[in-house]
Structures are given as C-alpha cells and as structure tokens.
C-alpha cells in the first residue's frame, strides 16, 4: 500500500516539476539496464557500476547536468524513454536505423564488434551454411539478435531476457554457441569462472546495417539533450577523461574507428 502511495506521490511531484525548467542544474534522468557487465551492472551492495555509468557521470559533469539513474529491463528500454520514465538511455545501445525511427541518437561513445563463443575444442565453421541447424543463445531486442536472424537464418536462435541468462544456458550445454558484443562476452563471461571452458570462435562482426555506428545515447526526438550530450562527448574525448575511463576497464581503445 505504501509503495502505491509513494509511487503516486512521486509521479505527481515529478509531473509538477516536469513542465517548466528548474532552477540551477538541469535534472536529467538516465535509463540503464544494470545487467550487462562490464558496461553496466549492479554490484553486491545494489549500486550501479560499469563503463557506461562512468561515462554517463563524466558526461553529466561536462554538460553540467544533475543526473540520476533509473534501472529498466532491456525489453522496456526504448518504451520507457518514450514514456518519459527517463530522459536519456546510456546502456550500450547501438545506433541503428530501425531505432532511429523511434528515437534520436547522439554520436557514438564506443564501438566494439560482435563475436560468437563456443565450448573450447568445438569445431564450428562460422558461416551461414556451416552453422545451419546449430543453436545459438542471444539476448532479445538486441542488434545481435537481428543480425543473426537476417544473416544466419538456418540457425536455431534462442532468445533470452538478459545476456546473463543466455550465458547460463550456454554453460548448461543447451545451446551450441553464444553471440553478443565481444567485450561483454569477454569481461562478463569468458573471464569469469562460469566461462572458463569457452572461447571466441570466428571473426569479428561489425556491419553498420545491423550493428550501427556503435553505441550511442538515445533521447526522445526533438529533445535539446542531443546537442548538449554531443558537446559533452567531444569534450571528454578531448580533455582525456574518456581515455582515463577507457583505461580503467579495457586495455584497448573501445572508441573504435
């Protein structure tokens, strides 16, 4: 009961404040998933951590925004933005034409390729013909799912609500391969205890038509946050903040070409 009352009061208060501009720093709510290490995840104490979180904080400092984070499951990420649950999405969301129909994107803030993973010693030929009939675990509503459906139609594509669940079924031996962002697979799976018997197989995949230009910040169409965030991205790239955050998580350049 209390939660309902709180939710209603919170909604009312936010609704009252939303209309006009507030004094002082602009309040910006940022939506993120919290289930995609090392980019965004929730640590044992319930705090959001990760590359996306650090970048978001850096951008907010550069753009002089007062930012707060809102956790949302991946399926509801764009609907939540459109429903004004938050004002921007910083959750490793790839910039694609399909998504651009619904939302606007800033310039990218990183770009890493996708790869397949499989159990060590398995001998898969990573071609559409070679993988026909094989099963692959992928997260629902991602560019990776779309890429597989359009380019590897002969595969048995199993979709999961989170990357973690996809990895779990791969470990359990229910599917033959996994397919996702190479960095998320490396840090979130291969380097962990669960993924020790697995390895990358096949080439990098980074086709703009499916993978877009990289990960960007999604905002509602017509919002003035786009220009502000673009400026902030340029700023942190120039003044070395980006390099610092990059080095904290990766030993290679995630910004890409």
């Amino acid at each position, binding site marked *: *009961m209390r*939660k*309902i009352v709180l*939710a209603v009061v*919170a*909604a009312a208060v*936010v*609704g009252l404040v*939303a*209309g006009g501009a507030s004094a002082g720093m602009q309040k910006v709510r940022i939506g993120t998933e919290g289930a995609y290490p090392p980019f965004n995840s929730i640590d044992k104490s319930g705090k959001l951590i990760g590359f996306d979180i650090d970048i978001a904080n850096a951008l907010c400092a550069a753009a002089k925004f007062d930012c707060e984070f809102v956790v949302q*499951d991946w*399926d*509801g990420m764009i*609907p*939540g933005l*459109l*429903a*004004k*649950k938050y004002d921007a999405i910083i959750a490793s969301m790839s910039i694609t034409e399909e998504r651009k129909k619904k939302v606007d994107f800033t310039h990218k803030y990183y770009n890493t390729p996708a790869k397949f993973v499989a159990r060590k010693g398995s001998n898969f030929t990573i071609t559409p013909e070679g993988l026909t009939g094989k099963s692959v675990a992928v997260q629902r509503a991602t560019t990776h799912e779309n890429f597989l459906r359009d380019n590897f139609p002969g595969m048995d594509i199993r979709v999961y609500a989170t990357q*973690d*669940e996809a990895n*779990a079924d791969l470990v359990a031996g229910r599917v033959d391969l996994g397919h996702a962002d190479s960095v998320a697979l490396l840090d979130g799976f291969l380097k962990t205890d*669960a993924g020790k018997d697995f390895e990358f197989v096949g080439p990098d995949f980074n086709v703009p038509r499916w993978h877009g230009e990289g990960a960007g910040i999604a905002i509602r169409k017509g919002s003035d946050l786009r220009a502000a965030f673009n400026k902030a991205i340029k700023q942190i790239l120039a003044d070395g903040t980006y390099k610092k955050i990059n080095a904290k998580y990766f030993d290679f350049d995630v910004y890409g070409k």
Partner: protein
Amino acid sequence: MLDLKGYGWMLWDGVQMTVLVGVGAMGLALVMGLLGAWGKMSKSKAGRATADVYTTVIRGVPELILILIVYYGTPTLIQDVAENFGADIIIDINPFVAGLTTIGFIYGAFATEVFRGAFQAIDRGQIEAARAIGMSQTLAFRRILLPQVWRFALPGLGNVWMVLIKATALISVIQLPELLRNADIAARAVRLPFTFYFAASLIYLAITVVSMLALQRAEAWANRGIRRA
C-alpha cells in the same frame, strides 16, 4: 538438506513482496468483483454489456500477455492520450503497480462470477421486505445484501485467492523482486537452480497451507449462527 549458501534472506524478502502484491491485488479483485457483479445484475443494458465484455475478455486472454500489455504499453498510451490534450504528464508504471493492477483486474473477473452467484443465492424475500419498508437500493445493498454475501461468496473467493497468490509468480517476468524472481537471482549467483526453485516452491506450498487454514476459519465465522441442515 537445502543449502541456500547464505542467500536465504533473498527468499524471505521475496515472499514478503509476494504476499504484499497478492493482498493488494486481492483487494482490487474484490472491488472489481463487486463492481462487475453489480454491473451484471443491473437493469441497464450498458452496465450488463460492459460487465460481460470485462469477464469475457479477461478470461479469454493469458495473464502473461495482459501483464506485458499493461507494463510495456500503458505508459505510452497515457503519454499519447495526454499529449492530445496538451498536458505533459509523467506516469511511472513500476513493476509493482503494473503487476498489482493487472492481477487484480484479471481476478476481478473471476470474483465477479463468484459474487454474482453469491448475491443470487441470498433469499429474494429479504430484498422484497427491504423495499417494502422503503429502503433505497443502496441502503438495501449495504445493510442486507453485503453482510450476508460473504457466507456464499467465501468458498469461491477462497479459490480465487489460491489461484491469485500463485499467479503473482508471473510478475517476475517484469522483474518485480517477488519470491520467484529473487529465487532466480540467487540461483544464478550460486548456480544451484534446482535448490532455489525447490525452496521457493516449498514456500508457495506453505502459503497455500496457511491460506487453506485461514479460509476454514473464515468460513466458520461467516456461517456463525446459521443452522446447518
């Protein structure tokens, strides 16, 4: 036997949330049930039609689909409607609210049927007598029908509760931290899925048993003073 590896507290948090959302949804279901029964028995065609559409649609569609529609669809709907009127409202449909209202609405349809049968089981003569001495519809409802309906409605409502409390497990799909979802998270953390899902299932069984006992008590209370044939 069941080594929960220190994650037992997650199940405890989860069951509290389950009971909370279940009781809330049951409350909503009771309200919707009374409204629906009133609609079905009303003289106006519109009232009957609305109530009929309500029970027909809700009972013909899977709960999972309804939960997905409410959680992913409603915010956008309200946004679109509000924009047409030029208002800038922000509605936060969090998993708790979405889950509670959906489950409450669904089981309100079942409760409607229970209440309808229960109201019809009350002796017509009592209503006639109430009208004869000049009681208004509302007064007759409040003082004659409502106190007596529980005796007939409790068994059916008890069934609705038993199904409803298990249906709360579906809200885990939209990430509400109730019992099943927490069991899920714990199971993944220590990679012992069977242990945690089995423990969760035993907790649901315990809720079932407690509910059955409470219902027996409630039925005894509702039937106080009635001579049994």
